């Protein structure tokens, strides 16, 4: 078998060589960014230059960048921090307005607030294409404006790749004085993201989705937004995120953000072409495969440039994964496991698919190291994998 084809860039993508170099160089330097002596100042300078670089590329001001351990922590800080702050100041504000297709890094802290702290949640539904209706969102905001503590809607969905109407929903929230958070983990570096312009108050991003290191990310926090911290201690990061700063990772994050945004236009066009080739190739196999989510050929207006999400009727996603992996194609079902057991995707269920339709899902995601050969490998491997997976599905179907 030749080199395996990696089509799981939405899970994590290859770290960029310049990032490795920057991290390795920084790790050789002594210094706590909070110390006042020479070594501390040198570390702090790296952190602040990284902050400035990220702010510049994402249309934010440096003081709006709060470093975290990744996208999940950024989402948790946004959801828990904003709700607790607003609810404390104004106990009438106990509600959250959240889309049904959020990542679990948003859904689970929301669930925690509902279960343990008396929060109530209103859901922003999506259509069959996996997109939130901006007008319905605006109406929902207007209706509950005085009780809402936070609106959270992702920029781009991690499973089906659909882009959401962030600017419209952010504007509606702004008009009613409700903080708006967007999980942009899948968007940053892949589609243009400008924090100041988009109208969001809080925006999450992650390093390893754009060729940066794992274990680092950031929450962009508008200067006038108050959050209740999750961690307490040394008061780093505007008192929002205590803990010694991971200088090398922060440096790596900044280098990755710069590289991804520098090459965004060219890379977006390249990935759209690969994506469309993969979609077309898969749908033309005559296997009954269907594409999930919005798609306009040649465009990344409604779908991420690197996302392909297929539903294969009559299969279990985990059988497909095994067979494709054995055939040298690494991809994902896109949805979470519980104790290793794949669960039907909450995103597909929210889009109106039945449990059975949601089981044979395949997420194939492209990134900066993807080539045409990767796409060809998938198309070549799919027929055999689908045929076997269907037989396996029949073999294990319960009585009935």
């Amino acid at each position, binding site marked *: 078998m030749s080199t395996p084809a990696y089509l799981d860039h939405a899970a994590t993508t290859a770290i960029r060589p310049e990032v490795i170099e920057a991290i390795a160089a920084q790790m050789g330097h002594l210094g706590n960014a909070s110390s006042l002596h020479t070594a501390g100042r040198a570390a702090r300078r790296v952190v602040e230059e990284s902050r400035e670089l990220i702010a510049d590329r994402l249309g934010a001001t440096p003081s709006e960048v709060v470093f975290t351990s990744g996208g999940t922590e950024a989402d948790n800080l946004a959801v828990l921090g904003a709700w607790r702050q607003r609810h404390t100041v104004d106990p009438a504000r106990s509600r959250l307005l959240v889309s049904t297709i959020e990542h679990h890094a948003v859904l689970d802290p929301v669930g925690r607030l509902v279960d343990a702290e008396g929060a109530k949640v209103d859901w922003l539904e999506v259509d069959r294409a996996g997109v939130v209706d901006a007008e319905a969102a605006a109406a929902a905001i207007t209706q509950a404006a005085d009780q809402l503590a936070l609106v959270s809607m992702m920029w781009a969905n991690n499973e089906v790749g659909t882009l959401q109407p962030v600017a419209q929903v952010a504007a509606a929230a702004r008009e009613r004085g409700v903080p708006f958070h967007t999980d942009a983990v899948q968007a940053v570096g892949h589609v243009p993201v400008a924090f100041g312009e988009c109208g969001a108050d809080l925006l999450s991003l992650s390093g390893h989705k754009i060729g940066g290191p794992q274990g680092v990310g950031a929450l962009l926090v508008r200067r006038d937004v108050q959050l209740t911290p999750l961690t307490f201690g040394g008061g780093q990061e505007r008192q929002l995120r205590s803990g010694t700063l991971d200088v090398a990772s922060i440096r790596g994050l900044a280098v990755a953000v710069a590289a991804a945004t520098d090459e965004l236009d060219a890379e977006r066009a390249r990935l759209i072409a690969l994506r469309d080739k993969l979609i077309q190739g898969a749908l033309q196999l005559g296997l009954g495969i269907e594409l999930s989510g919005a798609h306009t050929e040649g465009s990344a207006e409604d779908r991420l440039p690197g996302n392909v999400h297929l539903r294969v009727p009559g299969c279990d996603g985990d059988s497909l994964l095994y067979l494709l992996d054995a055939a040298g194609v690494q991809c994902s079902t896109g949805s979470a496991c519980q104790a290793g057991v794949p669960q039907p995707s909450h995103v597909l269920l929210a889009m109106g698919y039945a449990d059975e339709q949601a089981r044979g899902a395949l997420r194939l995601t492209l990134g900066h190291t993807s080539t045409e050969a990767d796409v060809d490998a998938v198309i070549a491997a799919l027929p055999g994998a689908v045929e076997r997976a269907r037989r*396996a599905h029949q073999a294990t179907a319960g009585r009935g």
Partner: protein
Amino acid sequence: MRVVAAMSGGVDSAVAAARMLDAGHDVVGVHLALSQSAATLRESARGCCTIEDAGDARRVADRLGIPFYVWDMAERFKQDVVEDFVAEYAAGRTPNPCLRCNERIKFAALLDKALALGFDAVATGHYAQIVDGPHGRELHRAVDAAKDQSYVLGVLDAEQLARSFFPLGDTTKPQIRQEAAERGFSVAKKPDSHDICFIADGDTAGWLAGRLGAQPGPIVDETGEVVGEHEGSFAYTVGQRRGLGLKVPRPDGAKRYVTSVDPQRNTVVVGTADLLGVDRVVGDHLRWCGPAPAGTVRLGAQLRAHGEELPATVRVDGDRVVAELDRRTRGVAAGQSIVLYDGSRVVGSATITAATRVGVTTQ
């Protein structure tokens, strides 16, 4: 060969997977998620199929460098094993869910899925041996008599055996533990699982009561006199002595045992030990591990998982089997499996429908 190693997370299946890999096979580890609530943590050394067991299995697979998957068979397990178990008890019988699981899940649903995916066979950590002999691929007892699990495999037919590997059958348990330690497996000292995997605390009667509800009724002696009461006849097994709570002692003070369970009348019958004697066992649901015996043959009969093997004269009569035991044994309940042996070779099995002694029927 391309082989699925069924990995429970225990020490035996870990070594079995490693041995298959050593033998040159292309091995993929598969953990079966059988519990309806797979996310629970292990509550004791018992039970299995918790998130920790899946994690233990994954650690071993990672160490061996083999792919590892969790296959969700909870619904099939519930239908074919758990619900069957409840229904059998409700009908006054005493089933062995391990045989059922081997027949319907491990060497059926799991094996079928593996074959459909392009695998050639399934390997497990059962203590039993497969020997190529005059009857084809024969199932034999393990060399470690204390660990021998051929009894619970007595439901496998020739086709299933042709697709199965039991790499531990030639080794004793202490040696397997030592081998696991030498291989650096984190599960080398993990306690064995016991009893019924889906009843984590081992309280079968309590678990059944939760499913079937309390159904109070009388406990009577062999003359029909009420000598106690029970919370559900399903919780009693022929041969049981403990936990009867009898209120009326026998005048002679002799110990009493459950001699029969009548779910229709919700009545438990008790009597003295001599009433438990059985010398004729009839079974149906015949499963032959190779050619079915013809006519009347002399075989060994084992009536419970770690019971002794009893010499018997066995006659296959259509879709049932009759075993005349050379010497009387005690406490045989309908629903148990009778597994037949020719020397160390497993001939086949049946589910006991009636156990009788001269002049008396206990079911």
